[in-house]
């Protein structure tokens, strides 16, 4: 088979079924790999949901003056589509990889706070239901994923729709923040001996940057949402225009969060691609230091550009100019990444399994989205673009062509590690090409319809405006994307059972996760490895190739302290008990704390319905349940 690597030698037996199974084991697991899988499955499910929402949107817009869905339903659909894709699909898909990969890549047996990790997942899973289910009752949020006040406030956004949004995002924020503290600690403190920061795999690096973005951006939306929540539930005046409230306060707070958020969405994908490209080029990542640094720069600059979403609000020429220039600057570190990726491939020995196709697809497609992003950064011109389909084209090229393509690259690349089996390459190829064509068919025409005057967030448009053709093509493209998605789903599920057995290292990867069996044993590493370079597996398997690259041994002290052993390939699979490795106990408590939080928040909705006693019961009961479970959690031993 064209894709199996020449250097993959260890032919291991078919993956053993996980010892633990059954619903209860999933509810109580604190194993970062199983939590990663939970994230993966849940987020893929929501990808289908968000995709179907998009499908309805596109069907409604296929031709002028259609009424496939009502105006009100359309507004709920696009709000939920945006919210779902951002908070329930791309962030959790990234989280799936954070969970699964970071400990493996840094040579750790788990994350720093395994139970907090389970908690993050359960808050996400339950919060996702909280915000998604209302659509079946026509009560889904309808104020846009940006929830601009005062439309999202009590005066103009009455009803329960936006209640679910405000509370839902608040809940999801808890999940992301908890996970971010966890991963920052994990990356700082649980790296294997010798794994210095500048030896970390690039995916871990980008994840590290992303965690800081989360830690700094989410509190801002938390505050903004608290204001909105207080306005809606307690009658405060933050965004109440009658009392002098300023709608721009919401906008600024939202985008101070919102812009870093888009890098939260794309940097993990960049990280994944930075793993895939070197592997299949058989060359180290070009300009590792600069790649790490540009990631940090993107993150840092990302906090100084938020008002480029607000050029139409009339901030005055000075502010417009400042934000225009800072926005343009972000193109520079991003460009560095693009060129370094190409340089990684240049002179390499390229092969093109599906993951590589998606990775290259990301470079090609993200560049288009990036360039249109730079086009928005010029305010006089952006005033013709903003809130039109040109913007929709931009962000789908960066989100679908960037984040989603990168994540697909990651899924194909790591599927054998996760399941022990390879995905079908033929179907993968079909998936890629349909996806690639569908993506361009769907989103490229939006550049035209946008510049030809079609506004965003409209459920209908009149005939004769010159937009019909472009909308039709977009809609056709979307159906192609659905077909591609279904092929992927089939491939995914069937390969899990019937795919070719992968072995430890099917691709010839350079990093630690390829040294252990697939799927990895629950303890990950039988012995914590000692790392001497960025490419430990290449050092081990193809030392002649990496001979010219940097190798410095870490201090003997550290290694002694950790009883580390040089990196080697682990071919045996034993139980943690046999090896004497302490494994954290499974526990239901993180789930219960998460449940308590959801009940507590639901109380607020009940309050809005006007059932005061029931609301109080839910809120107090929920908090009591949460505090009780938390206490039980904190007082029980970890392992």
């Amino acid at each position, binding site marked *: 088979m064209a894709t199996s690597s020449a250097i993959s030698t260890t032919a291991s037996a078919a993956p053993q079924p996980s010892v633990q199974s059954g619903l209860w084991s999933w509810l109580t697991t604190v194993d970062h790999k199983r939590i990663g899988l939970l994230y993966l499955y849940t987020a893929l499910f929501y990808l289908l949901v968000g995709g179907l929402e998009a499908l309805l949107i596109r069907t409604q817009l296929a031709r002028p003056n259609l009424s496939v869905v009502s105006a009100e339903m359309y507004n709920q659909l696009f709000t939920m589509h945006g919210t779902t894709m951002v908070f329930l699909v791309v962030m959790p898909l990234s989280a799936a990889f954070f969970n699964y990969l970071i400990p493996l890549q840094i040579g750790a047996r788990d994350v720093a706070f395994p139970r907090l990790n389970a908690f993050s997942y359960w808050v996400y899973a339950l919060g996702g239901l909280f915000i998604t289910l209302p659509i079946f009752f026509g009560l889904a949020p309808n104020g846009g994923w940006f929830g601009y006040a005062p439309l999202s406030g009590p005066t103009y956004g009455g009803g329960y729709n936006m209640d679910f949004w405000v509370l839902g995002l608040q809940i999801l924020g808890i999940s992301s923040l908890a996970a971010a503290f966890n991963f920052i600690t994990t990356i700082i403190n649980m790296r294997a001996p010798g794994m210095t920061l500048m030896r970390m795999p690039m995916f871990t690096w980008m994840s590290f940057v992303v965690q800081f973005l989360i830690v700094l951006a989410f509190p*801002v939306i938390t505050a903004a949402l608290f204001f909105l929540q207080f306005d809606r539930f307690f009658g405060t005046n933050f965004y109440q225009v009658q009392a002098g409230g*300023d709608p721009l306060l919401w906008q*600024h707070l939202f985008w101070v969060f919102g812009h870093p958020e888009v890098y939260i969405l794309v940097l993990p994908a960049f990280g994944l691609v930075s793993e895939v490209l070197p592997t299949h080029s058989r060359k180290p990542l070009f300009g590792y230091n600069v790649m790490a640094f540009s990631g940090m720069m993107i993150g840092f600059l990302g906090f100084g550009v938020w008002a480029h979403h607000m050029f139409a609000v009339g901030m005055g020429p000075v502010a417009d100019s400042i934000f225009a220039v800072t926005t343009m600057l972000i193109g520079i570190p991003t460009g560095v990444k693009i060129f370094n990726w190409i340089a990684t491939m240049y002179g390499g020995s390229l092969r093109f399994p599906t993951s590589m196709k998606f990775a290259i697809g990301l470079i090609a497609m993200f560049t288009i989205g990036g360039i249109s992003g730079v086009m928005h950064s010029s305010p006089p011109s952006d005033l013709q673009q903003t809130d039109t389909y040109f913007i929709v084209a931009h962000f789908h090229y960066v989100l679908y062509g960037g984040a989603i393509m990168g994540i697909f690259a990651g899924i194909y690349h790591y599927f054998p590690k996760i399941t022990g089996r390879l995905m079908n390459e033929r179907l993968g190829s079909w998936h890629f090409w349909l996806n690639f064509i569908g993506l361009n068919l769907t989103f490229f025409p939006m550049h035209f319809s946008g510049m030809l005057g079609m506004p965003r967030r409209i459920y209908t448009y009149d005939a004769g405006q010159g937009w019909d053709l472009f909308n039709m093509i977009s809609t056709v493209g979307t159906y192609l994307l659905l077909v591609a998605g279904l092929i992927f789903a089939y491939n995914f599920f069937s390969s899990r059972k019937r795919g070719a057995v992968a072995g430890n290292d099917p691709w010839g990867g350079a990093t630690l996760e390829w040294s252990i069996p697939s799927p990895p044993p629950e303890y990950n590493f039988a012995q914590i490895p000692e790392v001497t370079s960025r490419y430990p597996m290449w050092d081990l398997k193809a030392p002649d190739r990496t001979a010219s690259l940097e190798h410095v041994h870490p201090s003997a002290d550290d290694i002694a302290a950790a009883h580390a052993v040089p990196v080697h390939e682990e071919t045996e699979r034993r139980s943690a008990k046999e090896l004497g490795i302490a494994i954290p106990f499974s526990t239901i408590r993180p789930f219960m704390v998460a449940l308590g939080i959801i009940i507590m928040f639901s109380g607020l909705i009940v309050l809005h319905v006007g059932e005061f006693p029931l609301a109080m019961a839910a809120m107090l009961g929920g908090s009591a349940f949460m505090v009780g479970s938390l206490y039980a959690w904190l007082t029980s031993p970890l392992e």
Partner: protein
Amino acid sequence: MSTDRTHADHAHEHPTWKQYKWVALWLFVITVFEVWAYYVPAFVASKAFVPTLIIMSAVKFTIVVLFYMHLKYDHQMFRRLFTGPLIIAACTLVAFLFLFSKVRIG
């Protein structure tokens, strides 16, 4: 094991009662001065009022962080984890004041 080692690593560097005392005294004195300033109309009216107060509270902020939170003596990782966000937060705050300064209320 590492907990103990961590702890041992920097425990001897912790500030002592002598410093704690001085820090407390400074906090007290500055606070008294701040409140006193509030009651001097001429000072309140002067251009120096706001900057002076902000500087004084920044000094208080800094000495608590450096000594009570022993950031001055601790691992530099902590300093980075704190100052980075602090700077971003401060810049954002200043940007907000700038962006909202020219309000035109209808």
